[in-house]
């Protein structure tokens, strides 16, 4: 991440300086400002989701969910404790339903727990699955299409599903191929 960030930042600053040197600082402040706005929105979103999630966890719902997904999780991530398994289960199912708001806090916790177990590969895999987006219901896109008076807003369902299954499968495959290769 350090390398990627350095390269992109350096190239961008150089080019901005060539076009308009006054814009370097203002662009950075603007970007930081956007992150603050997003942060405030996230505070609100997470307050709601984490609140509900805590109730669900207290009442044993998360446990049931992770039991359902356990075979898959065990196969892919090999987590060592139950807590970790639960968080992965919440993350995966939220991502599947296209609810990023609920997926992110559990994703952060699951990544931390996996890394605490020294299971760095599992954490990487979770990241790959999240960022190749395993969505069954493209909720955002469908609702925007409806706003634009699409004749068939759900028309996009099948191509979207095929594409996302394709990207996630490819991501998982590449992960397992390069994992061995990286360790050699």
């Amino acid at each position, binding site marked *: 991440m350090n390398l990627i960030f350095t390269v992109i930042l350096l190239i961008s600053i150089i080019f901005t300086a060539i076009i308009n040197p006054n814009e370097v600082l203002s662009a950075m402040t603007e970007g930081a400002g956007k992150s603050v706005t997003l942060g405030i929105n996230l505070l609100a979103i997470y307050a709601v989701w984490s609140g509900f999630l805590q109730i669900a966890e207290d009442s044993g719902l998360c446990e049931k969910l992770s039991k359902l997904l356990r075979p898959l999780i065990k196969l892919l991530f090999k987590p060592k404790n139950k807590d970790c398994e639960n968080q992965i289960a919440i993350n995966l199912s939220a991502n599947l339903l296209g609810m990023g708001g609920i997926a992110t806090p559990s994703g952060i916790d699951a990544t931390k727990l996996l890394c605490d177990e020294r299971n760095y590969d599992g954490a990487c895999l979770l990241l790959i699955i999240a960022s190749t987006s395993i969505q069954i219901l493209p909720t955002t896109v469908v609702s925007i299409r409806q706003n634009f008076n699409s004749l068939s807003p759900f028309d996009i369902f099948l191509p979207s599903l095929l594409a996302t299954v394709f*990207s996630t499968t490819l991501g998982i495959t590449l992960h397992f191929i390069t994992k061995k290769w990286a360790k050699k």
Partner: protein
Amino acid sequence: MNYISYILPILFISIIINAWIKKVKIYDGFAKGALKGFQTVTSVLPYLAVVFIMTELFSVSGVSKAVISFLTPFFKFLGIPVEIAPLVILKPFSGSGSLAILTDLFSKFGVDSYISRCACAVFGSSETTFYVSAVYFSKVKEKRLTRPIIISLVSTFLSTVFACFICRFL
């Protein structure tokens, strides 16, 4: 009828009723969860700042435009419509930015056009990779993320090619 809008209310209602039956302290639990949510945001915020500063400079500097025009012939060769190239490039960086491009494409080409449908499939099958990786690993000290990021970008890109291909038939 938009039945998708009923998913969330039903989910919330069933969580509350289930907790009620199991005699869970709903008020205390919710507050505890909300506190956890705040802590999550606090630990994520610095990384958000870094990613957003990078994204902003990336688009202001014109590097994103240069990358797009550089890659256009390559995209054409792979069967990706030139019109959705900005979406493909910007998606790993910014969710709100790519959403703006998506709605822009809808109003330009019509929501049921081939280009818009491609754009939808691309949008639905990819994520804001840089944002997700910064946030997910925000509580972890060790950050060797180059391999997973490259894998994510490669798979997302290939699925873009795939999406544009199947949109011709479906």
